[in-house]
């Protein structure tokens, strides 16, 4: 009976998130436009500027467009994770978060369900993006589309957990611009999404180290290797560890006795 309760609640949360995503068409379109602009415009412009040597998992010389596709898959998930965090702040301001948190289930389970719901939405977006990239002649091996699913699930959960963690600290929607400047942009540009690590090393040893230890880099590498049928153990362990750390901190952030909730004050 208890199991059924958990099951229904989890699907209820996932259903609500997916329904909201489907009904917000502009959100779906903008989630796709962003990586497509990078692929069709930015990558096309930089094709000749960035020479890429053969490096795993690629077995031959590749075009820049091919290189950045896994990074753009990561970008979709990064933005989606932050979007989920934004929707959590919105839910809290609008009050619907209260209804979720006052239902008779453990808080960690509710947050995990929220996280799964956000990840499901991001995976859907990535597959649509890969479909468009396929039409643009960027064609990874077909089995890669299957291998990428567990990688996307892990990276999506990790980036979603980061979003959850941030949402427990963000007081108001207005502060979300700060997240863009201080989290999304540094994470994205200081990663292997747009250029390989050895390229960064040529410019700055410090940046190289920061990019190497950036969890987003590891998530992108996990996706990159999986798309070409290979398993990157280091990236897997690192992404998993980041997920555990972010999720633990997010649960603490939403814990009524230890977290931020009680510092926000009440109205009456």
């Amino acid at each position, binding site marked *: 009976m208890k199991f059924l309760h958990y099951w229904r609640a989890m699907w*209820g*949360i996932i259903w609500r998130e997916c329904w909201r995503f489907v009904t917000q068409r502009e959100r779906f379109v903008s989630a796709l436009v962003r990586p497509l602009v990078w692929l069709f415009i930015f990558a096309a412009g930089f094709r000749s500027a960035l020479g890429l040597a053969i490096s795993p998992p690629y077995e031959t010389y590749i075009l820049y467009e091919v290189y950045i596709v896994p990074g753009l898959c990561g970008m979709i998930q990064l933005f989606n994770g932050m979007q989920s965090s934004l929707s959590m702040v919105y839910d809290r301001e609008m009050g619907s978060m209260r209804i979720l948190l*006052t239902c008779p289930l453990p808080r960690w389970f509710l947050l995990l369900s929220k996280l799964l719901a956000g990840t499901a939405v991001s995976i859907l977006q990535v597959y649509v993006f890969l479909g468009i990239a396929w039409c643009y002649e960027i064609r990874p091996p077909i089995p890669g589309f299957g291998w990428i699913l567990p990688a996307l699930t892990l990276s999506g959960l990790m980036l979603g957990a980061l979003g959850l963690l941030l949402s427990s600290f963000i007081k108001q929607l207005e502060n979300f611009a700060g997240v863009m400047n201080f989290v999304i942009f540094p994470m994205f540009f200081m990663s292997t999404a747009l250029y390989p690590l050895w390229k960064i090393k040529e410019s700055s040893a410090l940046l190289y180290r920061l990019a190497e230890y950036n969890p987003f880099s590891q998530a992108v590498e996990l996706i990159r290797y999986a798309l070409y049928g290979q398993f990157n153990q280091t990236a897997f362990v690192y992404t998993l560890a980041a997920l555990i750390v972010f999720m633990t901190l997010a649960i603490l952030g939403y814990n009524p006795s230890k977290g931020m909730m009680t510092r926000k*004050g009440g*109205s*009456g």
Partner: protein
Amino acid sequence: MKLAFSQIDSRATALSVKDLSFSYGGKKALDHVGFEIQAGECAVLLGPNGAGKSTLFALITRLYDARSGRIELCGFDIKKQTSKALGRLGVVFQQSTLDMDLTVMQNLDYHAALHGMGGKFAKQRIQQELERLNMYERRKEKIRQLNGGHRRRVEIARALLHKPSLLLLDEPTVGLDVPSRQDIVEYVHHLAKDENIAVLWATHLIDEIFPEDKLIILHKGQIEAAGSVAEILQQTGVATIKEAFYALTQGTQE
């Protein structure tokens, strides 16, 4: 599926708050608050703005965690037996908590899922509660299309879906017109009287109080008085609740 409401006997304590204190940083919001509400009792929590009503509600719903004191819902400690306690609680928050882009039915389906209800049983419960509030015909409309009074009705239906033993209402009539207010006040009193549900109703509107209600007057985080309307009037030596309220809150204006 068995639901909690049928399990509570007519004189059981639905809510017990003992020696509850809470501070935001250094500012004390609640100071040694204690009271009980029995099944079938409608308790009105009366207090001016800033009295600590919303904080008390956040503690009872465990959005905040009480560092000192104890809260029990139907005998279950909110801190140690959180899920069991919350399963017996229905809440209508001051601010609307409905999803505006979903329909009435979708909002209630979501709530039913969170409480582990599914399939025919959930549909049946939703129909029952909406029909009682004359909202079943509007189940396919988006919340955004409803007026304030109807949204509140949906929230009350939602709070009752899982048959709670205790219903919390945090100023549910704020911003509503007189007929909508009247309907809600009467409906909630009917729930307490005829369905044996314990109600804790936070308000600062004195005209929402019925003579048979229990009154809890909260001021600056402390309970100034608690008892039946007659007891409070006798204790303060005045003729009306309004005068009693002002006497107890030392002339605080709303």
